[in-house]
């Protein structure tokens, strides 16, 4: 910050604080993370420069066309920001366009200079930060990255041990939730560090495709472990061990594979090499079971085979990456399959909210005389809106304290300390000290809001320049501007869409059940009859909704008003979302199998599917305000059995009845139906504990 200010002031550039902003907002823990963010900030700024000049050139004489174009582009950026790739690029693109446009709007002749100055100062700030990060305090992500690979494998080994305990009927040493949370944390930490290590660690840079393959396989292993654990809940105790006599051999083999992978990640020779595991079924044990139970076992074995394959692949990948095996061929980069362009409702809502905030700020400045902050309010409303619109359950009140303290502190420095200084040599220690103190005190990620507010308000209020002036009014104007922004933010929680956690929770639940029902109802029973493009598009949209909504609902559940939940079971809503997640996974498995199963196999299960669809419809209605909250599960939903045709098919099979290709087809499909039915029952049981009446009531807060 000190160097960036020094260069900008020495060059006598306008608004030297733009360079300071660039430094303040790209600083992250490691060089790789910071450089990645810096690249996104520069490219986002360049895009914003081009777009803002285009908007100004098209609408220099028409303020309404100007705000229409600006809000359309901002909405596009907000929508893209919610995606998985390069979110920060779109965030910077959106708010920098607003800054340049609003800054140059009243005087379009200076637009080009403003855009160039913004780009120049941002690039200079980032260059200064990068050089300091590389040469003064280099902090590579190398060690943290390799440590994260070991943590990840160990967390997967823990989950596997837990599954084995469940499968063998032993008392589990820890709870599933804790293990799952640790596994998710380890995977997300690895994902972040991989991105950073690809930039600052040459060893990872060279083997980028290999590490991406490791990431894909490890994510798939997490999912397979979760599916196996979920399937164990549906199987009576000890049935799995009786049906598959080699189960213990399988568990020992997988555990030693995971231990060997962890060894290799710690640069030690693997203690063993992978061995083949067949998992044959015990025919006598299977014969005594119903088709329904055999289907459950067939599904569990599919998951175990998937774990077997994935751990073997992981072993090979890690052995190659860490130099314990010869590389036979180049690892090809994994390409994500092309998907339909599917609109995301939540991202559209977010885009609409920011556009409304931008319009409200613009209209307020035009129609209310001497509005505090002038058109600067539009810029800050856009930046704040973009930063906060995707935070679930965000409360405006959480900004009060950081903003009040930051304004008071910056005001104190600006009015009482800065006037005593007479040269940059005296100012530099002040900038260094303040920046250091803010970054040191608000280092933890959960204090990020305080750090961002502290740094940005210090830079904004002090407005350091070569022609320094001091005015008490500028501080009160900033304070008044933030009051107006709080009103704007608070209004955006209710208009145009209600973002109260209870309303969002119910809205998302309705969407989930509606999409789940559509998936069960619309897919043709005959895979030969190819659906048309619009049907495929619609199906893909609903499948994506079912796959993504449980995570979104879980994020909002934490913000539900405790008054609306059972007082003796505050975690009830969390348990409800866990069962929703299970339902989502089971529905995905079912629709995957149904896409390839022949019509003769599917027709027999149609009634069962219709029964489940009716239950989903009841759950959807329970989340509506006007309908009675009936979350009961019809007993017919879970008593599905194969019909006459399927039974005849199964009767004709001999040998390992789970292995014959025809029987396997039937049992897999039957097992998938059973999985959905069990998940529906689990959801129904959890939902009956919730006080839906209270949850659905309209409330002020």
């Amino acid at each position: 910050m000190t160097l960036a200010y020094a260069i900008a002031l020495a060059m006598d550039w306008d608004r030297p604080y733009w360079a300071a902003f660039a430094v303040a907002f790209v600083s992250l823990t490691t060089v790789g993370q910071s450089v990645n963010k810096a690249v996104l900030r520069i490219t986002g700024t360049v895009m914003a420069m081009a777009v803002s000049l285009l908007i100004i050139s098209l609408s220099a004489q028409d303020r309404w066309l100007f705000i229409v174009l600006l809000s359309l582009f901002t909405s596009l950026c907000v929508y893209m920001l919610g995606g998985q790739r390069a979110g920060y690029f779109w965030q910077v693109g959106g708010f920098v366009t607003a800054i340049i446009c609003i800054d140059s709007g009243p005087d379009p002749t200076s637009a080009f200079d403003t855009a160039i100055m913004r780009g120049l100062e941002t690039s200079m700030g980032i260059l200064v930060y990068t050089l300091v990060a590389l040469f003064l305090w280099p902090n590579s992500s190398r060690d943290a990255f390799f440590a994260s690979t070991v943590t990840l494998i160990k967390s997967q080994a823990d989950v596997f041990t837990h599954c084995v305990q469940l499968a063998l009927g032993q008392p589990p040493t820890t709870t599933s939730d804790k293990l799952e949370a640790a596994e998710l944390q380890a995977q997300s930490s690895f994902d972040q560090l991989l991105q950073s290590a690809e930039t600052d660690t040459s060893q990872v840079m060279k083997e980028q495709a290999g590490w991406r393959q490791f990431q894909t396989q490890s994510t798939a292993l997490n999912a397979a472990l979760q599916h196996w654990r979920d399937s164990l809940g549906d199987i009576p105790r000890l049935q799995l061990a009786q049906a598959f006599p080699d189960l213990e051999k399988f568990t020992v083999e997988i555990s030693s594979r995971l231990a060997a992978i962890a060894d290799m990640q710690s640069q030690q020779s693997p203690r063993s090499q992978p061995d083949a595991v067949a998992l044959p079924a015990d025919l006598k044990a299977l014969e005594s079971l119903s088709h329904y139970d055999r289907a459950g076992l067939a599904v569990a074995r599919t998951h175990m085979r998937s774990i077997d394959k994935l751990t073997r692949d992981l072993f090979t990948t890690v052995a190659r990456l860490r130099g314990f095996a010869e590389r036979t061929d180049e690892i090809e980069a994994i390409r994500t399959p092309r998907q339909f362009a599917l609109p995301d409702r939540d991202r559209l809502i977010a885009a609409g909210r920011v556009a409304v905030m931008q319009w409200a700020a613009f209209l307020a400045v035009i129609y209310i005389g001497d509005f505090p902050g002038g058109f600067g309010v539009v810029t800050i409303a856009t930046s704040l809106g973009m930063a906060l619109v995707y935070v679930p359950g965000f409360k405006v009140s959480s900004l009060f304290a950081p903003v009040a303290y930051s304004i008071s502190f910056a005001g104190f420095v600006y009015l009482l300390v800065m006037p005593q200084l007479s040269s940059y040599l005296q100012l530099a220690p002040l900038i260094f000290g303040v920046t250091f103190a803010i970054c040191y005190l608000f280092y933890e990620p959960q204090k990020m809001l305080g750090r961002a507010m502290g740094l940005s308000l210090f830079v904004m209020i002090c407005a350091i320049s070569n022609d320094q002036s001091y005015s008490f009014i500028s501080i009160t104007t900033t304070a008044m501007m933030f009051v107006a922004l709080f009103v704007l933010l608070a209004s955006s929680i209710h208009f145009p869409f209600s973002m109260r956690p209870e309303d969002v929770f119910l809205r998302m639940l309705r969407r989930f059940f509606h999409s789940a029902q559509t998936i069960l109802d619309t897919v043709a029973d005959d895979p030969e009859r190819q659906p048309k493009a619009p049907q495929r598009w619609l199906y893909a949209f609903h499948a994506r909704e079912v796959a993504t909504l449980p995570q979104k609902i879980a994020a909002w559940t934490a913000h539900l008003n405790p008054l609306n939940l059972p007082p003796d079971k505050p975690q009830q809503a969390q348990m409800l979302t866990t069962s929703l997640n299970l339902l989502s996974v089971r529905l995905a498995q079912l629709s995957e199998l149904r896409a390839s199963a022949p019509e003769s196999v599917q027709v027999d299960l149609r009634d069962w599917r219709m029964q489940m669809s009716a239950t989903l419809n009841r759950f959807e209605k329970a989340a509506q305000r006007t309908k009675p909250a009936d979350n009961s599960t019809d007993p017919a939903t879970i008593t599905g059995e194969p019909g006459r045709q399927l039974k005849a098919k199964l009767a004709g099979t001999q040998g390992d009845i789970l292995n014959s290709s025809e029987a396997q087809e039937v049992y897999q499909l039957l097992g998938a139906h059973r999985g959905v039915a069990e998940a529906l029952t689990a959801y129904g049981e959890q939902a009956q504990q919730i006080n839906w009446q209270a949850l659905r009531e309209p409330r002020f807060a």
Partner: protein
Amino acid sequence: MTPIPHEFAISGVYLPPMLIAALLGIAVALATTRWLDRKRLSRHFFYPPLVSLSFMIIYTVLISTFVVGA
């Protein structure tokens, strides 16, 4: 008889009476909506955010007319 409009001075900084009335109006409206929430009376309103806004306007007008004198 309604009070005569007058400015508020805090350490020499003059504040318009309407601002004070609006701040008091918002505070009283928030207290009212909290109380209605706690007593579960909010369920009788169709769209609470609009009711909340109406409370703010009504209280601001009442306070500015009968208390502050804006």
